[in-house]
């Protein structure tokens, strides 16, 4: 990975992925030895349908600068419809975050199949670039700092 960015900021990125498509796709990225940014770390879920929006809130509250959510393409869900349910959930959630002033560009949603090892690397690299551009999630970090302060009090 070339880092042509003079800005040395490296975003913390957590990826929530489903076991059957994107996790397997990311395995394929590995077996194909395609390189991508180290910033992204993966948490495995059985299905995108399992991913609770509260986990995204948790990730932000724990200092994530960006989040990737990825699962099977429509019609390819291992459980036939978990991704469709997830899609509806994200449609509502994303707009709600935008409504309260959270930059939704900090969350990247994608469909990456078990065959799309190269796409996974692309998604990661593009997302990390995007998060670098956005810079640290300062507005959220301010809240985190305040909360720590209060809790210590």
């Amino acid at each position, binding site marked *: 990975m070339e880092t042509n960015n003079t800005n040395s900021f490296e975003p913390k990125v957590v990826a929530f992925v489903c076991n059957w498509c994107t996790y397997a796709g990311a395995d394929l990225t590995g077996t194909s030895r395609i390189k991508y940014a180290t910033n992204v770390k993966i948490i495995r879920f059985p299905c995108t349908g399992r991913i609770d929006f509260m986990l995204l809130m948790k990730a932000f509250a724990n200092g994530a600068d960006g989040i990737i959510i990825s699962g099977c393409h429509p019609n390819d869900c291992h459980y036939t419809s978990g991704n469709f349910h997830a*899609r509806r959930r994200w*449609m*509502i959630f994303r707009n709600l975050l935008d*409504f*309260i002033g959270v930059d939704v560009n900090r969350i990247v*949603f994608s469909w990456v199949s078990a065959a799309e090892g190269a796409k996974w690397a692309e998604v990661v690299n593009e997302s990390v670039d995007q998060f670098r551009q956005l810079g640290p999630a300062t507005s959220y970090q301010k*809240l985190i700092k*305040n*909360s720590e302060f209060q*809790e210590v009090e």
Partner: protein
Amino acid sequence: MNNLQQKAQQLLESGNYGLIVGYEKGTSGKARPVFIRKAEHASKLIFDESCDQNIAVYLYRQEIKHNKKKVIVANHHTLKSIVELAAENQVFDGDFMVLAFAENGDIIELNTFEEIEKHVATLYHGLTEAEAAMMKKIEDMSLEDRWAFWENEFSKCIKCYACRASCPMCYCPTCTVEINQPQWISVPSHTLGNLEWHVMRAMHLAGRCVTCGQCGKACPLELPIQLLTYKVALDSKQFFDSVAGTSICADNALAIFKPEDHENFIR
């Protein structure tokens, strides 16, 4: 004695009904909920513009839940909430009678869910002009301004949960905010925890909020938190054509899907 009071008196005197949940005159021009059990108290009942509180929330309160001889005087918010509660299996057909009002002020007796659903279909579903203007004002702000606005509002929240208590749809015996393993939402009322609470509350009302605004009315700090649930309600309508409180059998907007649901953000 007006029609409503007469009606209430008759119902209680008949012995078929033992409790009427309705409105009475409160302080400073506001109405407040009242529970009438005796015919002679029927004259306390009022119904006018001041009766804007959504009192469907009382229907499943433990104290009266099992009383099958109850009547509820319902404004249009309350009616929609009853439909939504019926869809969510929280109130049961035949457990109560509803007194609603026609536009000319006539009392309408609604005995079954089907009748209520039919009546609700004639009502206006959507935001008032003033509410829509508030939504627009926020949506027109820049992202930074929106954040600043809500950060300021959330910083004031004291987590009294009046919003939750007033909402007919917040009926969970254990709210997620009270779960401590895992600790979904931090306990103190700092801005971050408050934000998490309000986002969660709004998300949990997706496809369920009837836009009565009761949460905002109940808030002692007058935070405009009803706009959050309005947002999910409007999006549910726009994306999925789902309007809460219109059908006693419809599935929740987020419990179903269509393969052709259209978003523009998934890569």
